Each structure stands twice: as C-alpha cells, then as structure tokens.
C-alpha cells in the first residue's frame, strides 16, 4: 500500500483519537478542526475532491464554528449566573 495513503490513514486515526481524548471542549474545537483538515487531505489523496471540498467547508469551518458559538453561549450562561 502506498506509504503516503497509509500514513494519512494512521494520521486520521490519530486525529480522531485526539478529538476523543481532548476533554476540554474549548480545546476540543481545535482538535475537531484539525481532524477535519486531516480528513480533507486524506479525501484528496483518495481521489475524492468533491468530498474533500465538502469536508473542508463543513468539517473544518462550519462545524467548529457552531461548536465555538455554542461554547460562547454556554460561557455567557455561566457568567450571568
């Protein structure tokens, strides 16, 4: 198997595990974005640019943004208390 692909698969496994193990939600956002980026690269390498573009737009930008806004709302809640 192509070394590059193998490495990317392993990297994807690592990035996913990183998301799980990053217990602090604020830092987890970065892990999620990084995971999205790794997946994007992997999808490009798997000759799937359509999917990679979606993952880039959704996984690396939109989803982390929603997480960020959620945490901002949560923090506000706590601050008001």
């Amino acid at each position: 198997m192509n070394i590059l692909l193998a490495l990317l698969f392993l990297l994807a496994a690592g990035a996913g595990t990183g998301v799980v193990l990053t217990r602090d939600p604020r830092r987890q956002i970065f892990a999620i974005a990084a995971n999205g980026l790794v997946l994007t690269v992997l999808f490009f390498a798997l000759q799937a640019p359509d999917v990679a573009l979606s993952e880039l737009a959704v996984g690396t930008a939109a989803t982390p943004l929603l997480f960020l806004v959620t945490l901002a709302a949560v923090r506000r809640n706590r601050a008001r208390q």
Partner: protein
Amino acid sequence: MSVLPWLVAAWLFGAGIYGIVSSRNFVHLIGCLSVCQSSTYLLLLGIGYRWGGVVPVFYDHPPGTKAVDPVVQALVLTDIVVGATVTALLLAMAVQVDRKYRELDPQKLRPMRHEGHQ
C-alpha cells in the same frame, strides 16, 4: 497492509463510542459522535478506491480513463450533510439544556423518573 483502512475505520468507531461513554460534557460528547461518523467516511471511500484510478471527473482525463468509484463519493457527500445537520441539532439542544439547567454533564442529565407505582 491492505486491511489498514478497515481497521482504522473500526478503531475510530470504537474510539468515538469510548468517548461518548466516558464523556463528562455534552459538547465533548457531540464531538465524539462526529468521530464515530468519520469512521463511515473512511470505510466508504476506502471501499471505492482503486489503485491508479483518477478522480472521477473527466475534465482533464478523457472519459474511459481508469477512475475511482464515484458512487461511494456521492454517498459520503450525503453522509457529511447528515453529520452537519445532526451536529447542529444536538448543539442547539445542548444550548437549551445549559440555558435552562446550567448542567452539561451527560452523567447527570436524565429525563425525569416516574417509576414507583404501587
């Protein structure tokens, strides 16, 4: 090593499950759920990959060039939409729970118990 992608997919699903079970913050749990989901992306795209195949877009290559499977890619596109929508819904619920109850620990969030008749 032709089984590596499948093992990575299984690993990610397992890791996500572990994260969900052990999570102490709902926002974190939602992140773990998306890890579970990424295992399905890997599985599907891995299944459709073909050694030496090109992108299934015949713009730079003439039609008939050996290309990877476009069907699984279309499936994964749908899957990504699923992921985004479910994440948004869950986050909205998490915001509401926190707003009303100041509690995001999944080990403490439970629907009201009504047991105990008789």
